[in-house]
């Protein structure tokens, strides 16, 4: 099976579970990680097409995870969506600071997430 892999990174298990369900329903294969450290290990194994990550996480936060993905030329093709809390700084600031491809506010809009993943994968 050559399904596109998507990595969901969030320290909250309910969010991981829900996002996995949403994405698997759309036909993607999903791997999950609880923090940035685990995420990096999963990326090495699974080479996901898209990484969806929370910003605030223990051990290695979302900004640092993005940075470490971006410094690796072999991960160039990976698209990154970061999830932010609604009251945090503007999307543009987060985009600049993280180097992500897309910023989405929590609570996530399921339709928008599916659409965004599809569009990012089409660009690859």
């Amino acid at each position, binding site marked *: 099976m050559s399904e596109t892999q998507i990595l969901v990174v969030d320290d909250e298990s309910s969010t991981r579970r829900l996002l996995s*369900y949403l994405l698997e329903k759309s036909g993607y*294969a999903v791997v999950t990680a609880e923090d940035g450290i685990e995420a990096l290990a999963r990326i090495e194994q699974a080479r996901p097409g898209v990484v969806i990550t929370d910003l605030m996480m223990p051990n290695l936060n979302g900004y640092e995870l993005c940075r470490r993905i971006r410094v690796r030329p072999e991960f160039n093709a990976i698209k990154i969506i970061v999830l932010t809390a609604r009251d945090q700084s503007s999307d543009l600031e987060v985009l600049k600071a993280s180097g992500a491809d897309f910023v989405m506010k929590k609570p996530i*809009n399921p339709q928008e997430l599916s659409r965004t993943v599809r569009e990012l994968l089409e660009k690859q």
Partner: protein
Amino acid sequence: MIITSSLTKQLSAFLSSMSRHGGIELCLTDEALRPLVCTPHFRLNTLSNAAGFDEALVRTVAVQQAASLRLFGEAGKAGSAKDQIESLLNLSADGIGYFIKNEAEVQMLSEELLERYQELHLLYEVIEDVSAVFDEHKICEIILNKALQSINVELGAVAFNEEGQLAVRLVERDARARGEYSESDCLLYAQEVMNSGSYLVLERPEGKISSVLGVPITVNNSVIGAMVLIGKAHGEMFTSADRISLGALAGYLGVAVTTTRLVLESRRAEALRREIEFAEKIQQSLLPHELPCFASLDIAAHCLPSAQVGGDLFGFLRLENQRWAVTVADVAGHGLGAAFIMASLRSILRSEAKSGMTASEILKNSNNLLSEDTRGNDVYATVFFAVYSERDNSLNFSNAGHPPPLLWKAASRDFCELHKGGMALGLFEDEEYENQTVILQAGDVLVIYTDGITEAKNANGVFYGEARLKDVIKDNARQSSQGLMEALLASLEQFQAGMHRRDDMTVLILKSSEIL
């Protein structure tokens, strides 16, 4: 339901454990016999010849709303007996059924949660757009367009119950729609939603309409309107998620519209309060600051404005030859409009009074002048106007529709009502007025008042009336003007005990000195 990675993980762990402990190999496949989870040593090539597989070693696992799964079992290396394999197979099938049931429940809850997220997200967007808008129409427009976009329909409408009548406030159409449906279609369904107070979901209700979704707009448990969507795109039917989304939007629309109405209402109340304050100032500035002193007249005056500014006016103006103009007037209506007419009336009367004419001629001219100001505005003033002469203590008066002042004749101990005159001022031009002259004898008391006195009501809705007024005058006629005034006010106060005053009350008392 779908076979998710988390379910596969759980099943894989479970089958491995069964295999390890039971010495059997297991493989779970879908309906088409494609393996989903297998233990490491299961011989997959046996699946390609499934027909030859021993039926006793296959179990079917039912999956909600999906094709069933198959569980194949075979002996492991240890070569377990067939009946042992069968009983382990049964156990495994039950276990898988349990995992799948759990997963189905989780997926159902996830679906529901995603619908809620969708709804929540929609509301976040709408709240961001609407928060600074205080225009009912604009709010409806934003929210209705959001509904059209997010639910993907051709036509939507917002209708409100306005004084018992259902009025379509707004109809929006998806620009790509073919325009098959009309406002009247919306009205019909909106009415149905309003009547039932609940959701309305229809599939092909009439020939050309494909689908209808309607939700009530409810505020504090009362239905104030309805949102209706007609024609979901691509001929699809409305889903429960659509119903939830539209319900959420309608709920917020109700709150936003109600808030807007309250804000506008309080702004109007504030404007009205300022108008009243301003009118009060005008009225106060038009009333005399002090009363004139006469050798042969003892005067008392009282003017109590009501909560809402009225148009009571009284005044004195010194004329030539020891004569004075005396006026008590009541402009119909309240507020700023009445205050302006009062100001206009006051200046007209002051200038006319100086002409030296009789009271009736002065009122006739004043009426013509005032009518120019009030034309078409349904504003008028009742006026008692008199010219008092200090020389002979005479009063030449004319009464324009004002409650007749009461003249207490001390000698005969009875009342004379001064009603000679004509129509209230400001209604019709070229009205004729009569006048009369009375001589104030020693001890006579003239009480000029506005209808706020006689029409003051008590808690039972009974008017104070002329009879009570006359009694007070009669009983206190020997007192000074001020003494009589105080007795009258005390009587009114007692009569109205604690009631809120509705109208202005103005009283002017002129008492002819006992000894000239």
